[in-house]
């Protein structure tokens, strides 16, 4: 295994390890915790193998192709900065695993916790090891997701849920901004490879896209690192279990933003915008965080704001853009990790033991829990920047840098504010020490707190040792700081970390800080009272209000526009179509008309007038439903007549028969529906609809006119030429239907088949649902006619049935050569049967029906399909037809064509579908209490006389 692939393994190990807790939790909590540590330890060891190389200043890297089209690869590299962070992440991670084992109560699902933790660890490792900014973005977003799970771990607590969502919202937003920024960077450089990008600092800074990229990336970094004004999410993330807080807010999550700024330092830093944005934001955040921290009573909140403050400090240092500031920042990253993680754990222990984290309700714990007190005090002192602890050294370095920084020609403002921050830093650190551990022992604890078992304080104790050690012997950290700072700056840095720099301005600033800090603590009670009265924007309240407003607005927009008002949806469709159509037309044009208009015989005017009148009647009287159907019939008739006149006899036949069957269906349905439509639309809406309608009608008419007056060459010359030769039929329309475009027709009969199925299925569902009850309770009009199956009708339809069937057969057979065909024939036979059904009732007629409609459709579709498939046998494509002539002397030749079989399929499907629809509607009617009959007519008078005859004979 080469060195590089070890890196990939390091990055992947925590993710693989995330499966471990789920498996091991069944073996007990100790086993779970132990085995969870294994991947972390392994990763740490693997990382360790790379340390020598990195310390030599080498960069270990590996690349696995992933999505080359995008420039995304699974590339990892390890330099000083990466090593620093990876070490922190894994090292502290290990401590957290240990700490959490003892911290979590037996009610908490430990397996879940460790899984989340390892996922998070993996995501963090990924960020710091990525050598591809897109890969980095992936891990970046993964930290948001996994931290969401960790913060919301106690999901039954509203704070947990809200804190998690807030963190996700803010960091997620930042992440998305960063995506934009990173993509821009990649585009400037032409590569998403981090190494390539880092080498192109000049190019980037010179680019016109530098500012957008900078801002977007900084938004990402600032949100993650809780910089002002995005700092507010961090304290609310404290709802997480303390191990999570310790991990996320000392070494990892929040440091991701710092890491990113450090990583991008060579390409982004050193410009004016960078300085003013980053340094200023850091400065403000540092001061603000420190001030707020002083007034927080919740231990974890106090630590959270202190974290905000320290992150500000780091940001400010990176913002300065100098080598020395970077060194200070790198060193402080290490120091902050050591004391802050320990402090969080301490706070957790206190909470665990005293059952409160409220500073006001704590005190005197030094006597009750001495070990904890020692740990807490040392680390808090370090946080305050007390000599000789590690916090002191890096704070001095910071103050030193601040002292030299000129902000907008002003040499004072940065040092003064930095000192102010330091003052408050001292104050809250002291408050942590004195108000928790100091003071008299309180007797109002629910149970007496005492030092926890070793397992719980082992981790913070170890960190405390580090705090002291680094403070005393800072040169121990020097190699690491060197390689890290080299990596950040891309230059050779030579940090000399020492405890004592002599009496420098920084030292004086420190002294002031301690003095003022002490005073602040003494005055804390009074200040607190003032603070409480100050108007403070409560970030959470604002965030919640904004969110609620957003949600409410979104709700209003989404529900308001998707409110189920169909007529508006349709109106929009119509208006949009007219608009885009008109735009398309009028931004272009048409050639001059080429066709002479056909003359209009007077009879055509009759048709036109009838059609317009009927349309007007339908529209104006649509509320009278039955009546409108009669009007519709006129339209159908006129159109059929028009088709006849305009040389489309097939269309006329089809139109008129479909029209009739449709009207039947509508009448059958109208039986159940209200007979009138209530007047609901306001005049305004009617007017609006009328305008839309007229515009639509006008547009369509204009469009039709545009092409009706112009010629075009059509492919149908081929159809005319080959219909007889190739398709064996003289009715070109029919040959197109069953042959040239038989595939369309195949689809079309399937549509009919599906319609039949759907209707049948729907009927079936209706007869089971609430509709069934409504149907059963249906009342019939008392004054409806008493004759259901009048004698005359029965006799007439009986006589007509065979005629109609002959007509159907005739139309079917001639279709290939003359107007007609399977479809019309199917409808004709349907209509013939329909007459029978109307005359004698559905039940009587149905009893005489031999073929089930279901299977008729099925056979139709299958026959049509098999006719098509049959062509395969001849090695021809689907639906290839064949035809020929049979000669039976003395009969004239008889044509056969496979297209006829196809047409038979059409015929069966049509017949089956229509009849199945009727059947379904009739079944509903019968369900509604309609009685059925088994005699063909209401009364047969000849049977009376036959009866009389019998009676007479009987007598």
């Amino acid at each position, binding site marked *: 295994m080469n060195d590089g692939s070890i890196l990939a393994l390091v990055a992947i190990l925590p993710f693989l390890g995330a499966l471990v807790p789920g498996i091991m939790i069944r073996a007990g909590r100790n086993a779970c915790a132990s085995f969870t540590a294994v991947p972390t330890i392994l990763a740490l060891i693997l990382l360790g193998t790379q340390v020598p190389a990195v310390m030599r200043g080498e960069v270990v890297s590996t690349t696995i192709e*992933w*999505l080359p*089209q*995008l420039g995304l690869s699974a590339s990892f590299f390890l330099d000083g900065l990466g090593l620093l962070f990876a070490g922190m992440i894994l090292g502290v991670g290990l401590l957290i695993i240990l700490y959490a084992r003892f911290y979590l109560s037996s009610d908490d699902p430990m397996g879940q916790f460790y899984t989340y933790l390892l996922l998070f660890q993996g995501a963090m490792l990924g960020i710091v090891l990525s050598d591809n900014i897109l890969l980095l*973005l*992936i*891990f970046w977003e993964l930290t948001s*997701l996994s931290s*969401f799970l960790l913060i*919301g771990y106690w*999901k039954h*607590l*509203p704070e947990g849920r809200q804190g*998690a969502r807030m963190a996700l*919202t803010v960091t997620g937003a930042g992440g*998305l*901004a960063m*995506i934009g920024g990173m993509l821009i960077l990649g585009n400037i450089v032409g590569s998403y490879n981090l190494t390539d990008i880092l080498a192109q600092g000049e190019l980037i800074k010179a680019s016109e896209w530098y500012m957008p990229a900078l801002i977007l990336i900084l938004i990402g970094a600032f949100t993650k690192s809780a910089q002002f004004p995005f700092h507010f999410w961090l304290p609310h993330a404290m709802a997480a279990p303390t191990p999570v807080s310790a991990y996320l807010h000392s070494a990892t999550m929040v440091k991701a933003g710092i890491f990113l700024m450090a990583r991008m330092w060579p390409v982004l830093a050193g410009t004016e915008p960078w300085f003013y944005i980053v340094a200023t934001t850091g400065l403000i955040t540092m001061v603000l965080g420190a001030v707020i921290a002083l007034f927080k009573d919740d231990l974890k909140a106090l630590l959270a704001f202190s974290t905000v403050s320290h992150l500000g400090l780091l940001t400010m240092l990176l913002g300065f853009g100098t080598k020395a500031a970077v060194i200070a920042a790198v060193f402080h990253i290490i120091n902050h990790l050591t004391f802050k993680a320990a402090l969080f754990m301490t706070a957790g222990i206190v909470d665990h033991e005293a059952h409160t984290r409220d500073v006001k309700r704590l005190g005197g714990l030094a006597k009750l829990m001495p070990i904890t007190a020692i740990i807490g005090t040392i680390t808090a002192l370090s946080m305050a920047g007390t000599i000789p602890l590690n916090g002191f050294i890096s704070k001095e370095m910071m103050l030193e840098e601040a002292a030299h920084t000129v902000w907008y020609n002003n040499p004072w403002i940065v040092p003064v504010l930095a000192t102010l921050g330091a003052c408050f830093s001292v104050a809250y650190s002291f408050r942590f020490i004195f108000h928790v551990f100091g003071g008299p022992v309180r007797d109002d604890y629910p149970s007496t707190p005492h030092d926890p078992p070793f397992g719980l304080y082992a981790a913070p104790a170890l960190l405390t040792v580090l705090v002291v050690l680094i403070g005393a012997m800072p040169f121990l950290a020097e190699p690491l700081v060197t390689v890290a700072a080299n990596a950040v700056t891309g230059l050779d840095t030579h940090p000399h970390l020492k405890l004592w720099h002599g009496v420098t301005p920084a030292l004086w600033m420190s002294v002031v800080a301690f003095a003022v800090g002490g005073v602040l603590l003494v005055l804390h009670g009074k200040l607190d009272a003032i603070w409480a009265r100050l108007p403070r924007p409560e970030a959470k309240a604002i965030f919640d209000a904004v969110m609620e407003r957003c*949600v409410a607005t*979104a709700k209003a*927009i*989404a529900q308001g526009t*998707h409110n189920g008002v169909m007529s*508006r*949806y349709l109106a*929009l*469709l119509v208006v949009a*179509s007219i608009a*885009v159509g008109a*735009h*398309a*037309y009028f931004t272009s*044009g048409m050639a001059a008309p080429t066709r002479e208009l056909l003359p209009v015989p007077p009879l055509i005017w009759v048709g036109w007038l009838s059609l317009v009148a009927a349309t007007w009647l339908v529209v104006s009287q649509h509320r009278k439903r039955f009546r409108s159907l009669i009007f519709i019939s006129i339209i159908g008739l006129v159109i059929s007549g028009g088709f006849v006149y305009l040389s489309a006899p097939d269309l006329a036949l089809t139109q008129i028969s479909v029209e009739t069957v449709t009207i039947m269906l509508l009448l059958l349905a109208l039986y159940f529906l209200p007979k009138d439509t209530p007047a609901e639309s306001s005049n305004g809406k009617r007017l609006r609809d009328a305008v839309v309608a007229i515009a639509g009608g006008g547009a*369509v008419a204009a469009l039709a006119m545009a092409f009706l007056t112009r010629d075009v*060459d059509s*492919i149908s010359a081929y159809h005319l030429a080959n219909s007889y030769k*190739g398709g064996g039929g003289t009715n070109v329309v029919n040959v197109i239907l069953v042959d*040239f*475009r*038989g*595939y*369309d027709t195949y*689809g*079309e009969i399937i*549509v009919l088949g*599906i319609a039949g199925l759907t209707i*049948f*299925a*729907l009927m*079936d569902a209706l007869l089971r649902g609430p509709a069934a009850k409504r149907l059963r309770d249906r009342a019939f009009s008392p004054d409806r006619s008493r004759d259901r199956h009048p004698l005359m009708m029965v006799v007439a339809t009986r006589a007509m049935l065979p005629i109609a069937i002959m007509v159907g057969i005739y139309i079917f057979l001639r279709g290939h050569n003359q107007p007609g065909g399977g479809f019309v024939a199917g409808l004709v036979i349907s209509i013939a049967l329909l007459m029978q059904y109307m005359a004698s009732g559905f039940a009587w007629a149905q009893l005489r029906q031999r073929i089930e409609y279901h299977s008729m*459709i*099925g056979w139709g*579709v*299958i026959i049509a399909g*098999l006719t098509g498939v049959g062509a395969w046998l001849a090695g*021809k*494509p*689907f639906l*290839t*037809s064949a035809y020929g002539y049979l000669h039976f002397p003395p009969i004239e030749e008889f044509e056969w064509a496979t297209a006829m079989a196809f047409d038979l399929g059409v015929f069966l499907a049509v017949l089956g579908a229509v009849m199945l629809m009727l059947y379904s509607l009739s079944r509903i009617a019968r369900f509604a209490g309609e009685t059925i009959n088994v005699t063909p007519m209401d009364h047969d008078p000849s049977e009376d006389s036959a009866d009389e005859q019998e009676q007479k004979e009987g007598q």
Partner: protein
Amino acid sequence: MNHWIIAPVVLPALLAPVIAYVMRHDIKLARYASVAGTVMLAAISLGLLTIVADGQTHVYYLGDWPAPFGIVLVLDRLSAMMVLLTSMLAMVVLWHAIATEWDNRGRHFHALFQFQLMGVCGAFLTGDAFNLFVFFEVLLIASYGLMIHGGGKVRLKAGLQYVVMNLAGSTLFLFALGALYASTGTLNLADLALKVRELPVEEAGVLRVSAVLLLMVFAIKAALFPVQFWLPGTYANAPAPVAALFAIMTKVGAYAIIRFYTLVFGPDVAAVDGLIGSWVMPASVITVAVGAIGVLGARRLMPMLAFAVVGSMGTLLLAVAAFTPEAIAVGLYYLLHSTFAAAALFLLADLVVTRRGSDALTAQPPIYQNGLFAAFFFVGAIGVTGMPPLSGFLGKLLVLDGVRDMPWMATAWAAILIGSLVTIVGFARAGSVVFWKSTAMVDAEAEASETVSPIGVNALVGVTASLTMLALLAAFAGPVMGYLEQASVQLFDVSGYVDAVLGQHGEDLK
């Protein structure tokens, strides 16, 4: 001519009537047949994928009539992929429908399902404009049947709206096709591509109208603003497996847009120069916004998912709007992703809503196995909202990258990124209410566990498979994108398509 090309249409078309009429009283038999048919379809589509590996455009001349006079089927990388996608989604959905007994809540589920597959595959394979209409109708009418499967008041009303909207769309489709035929005299896509390129822009009035009207039609299917309104109501009230299957329906619209506006009205066509993109782009941006706002503002889980679908279509079409080979390729990647993402969530929502008894986004006592469903929801949400490590994130990056050279890049980026954020927030809120807040309520889980048996593995297969697809899409993004880029290049090779379709027979004519 390779007869396998038509198999994805003929197989379900012959199977469906057999299921409907022979097996209609035996649900078990119907299930076996349906599953067997779908698996065969998947196998065939894999086979088709190997056919197109040669980079050729394969043409199937129905009825042995020469193009452009008969109807042709055209198999290229894109159509092969779409058919494969359909069959894979179908397997997932079918499995779920059977495992959850959804198929037995009404009649003819399997027959309608097969017909639906037939329609979808037919639409992907056809090389004829009017035949596209026919297959749109086949898939639509089957979807009407599936939409109202099982019946019920709200579903029928929503179904009615769905039908009405699509009938309006079909009418518009015919108007558009009429205008197209009126100005070109042909229906074959390849032939259209030729004819359209011959027409000077100043005489292309009717043709341009047909181009934009077709866009409206496809926009309805693809749920593009301002004709997306129907989607939330429909998807939210459809039977969940059907809603999951509908994930492919929006893609049919997207496919039609991609096919039509690269081949027939491609960016190189003088007559419609820039016309299409100039509408698709703003519409997509608004669609992204509508989706995101809807997710955030939804009061119920199913509409929320439906809005997420709307948003994803916006993102997809934003990529398409660029009409460059690169952007279409990434759009196709997003298409693959969003299909399975939507399916996963709708199937999952089905399981949750069935157990919860309501899809209101309000805290209710936790369902049995709350944690399990929460985990699935979390992963599904990651998929839909486009977070790593699933394919949505890569898709998002690809789309952002794909449109970077467009003049409207900033708008597109803003829409996608802000849209993502809003969607993430919406999903976080929803998940937190449904799965987390509920745990604060009485410990009903224990109670529930007494009455409800733990969820069977079978019922989770569909969700798991969909999510696995997202993971696989992410893991093998490189090879997948490689294929899609080739598909996209082939798509833009108009003369290649035209030669393949018209060449062989076209020569005979002259």
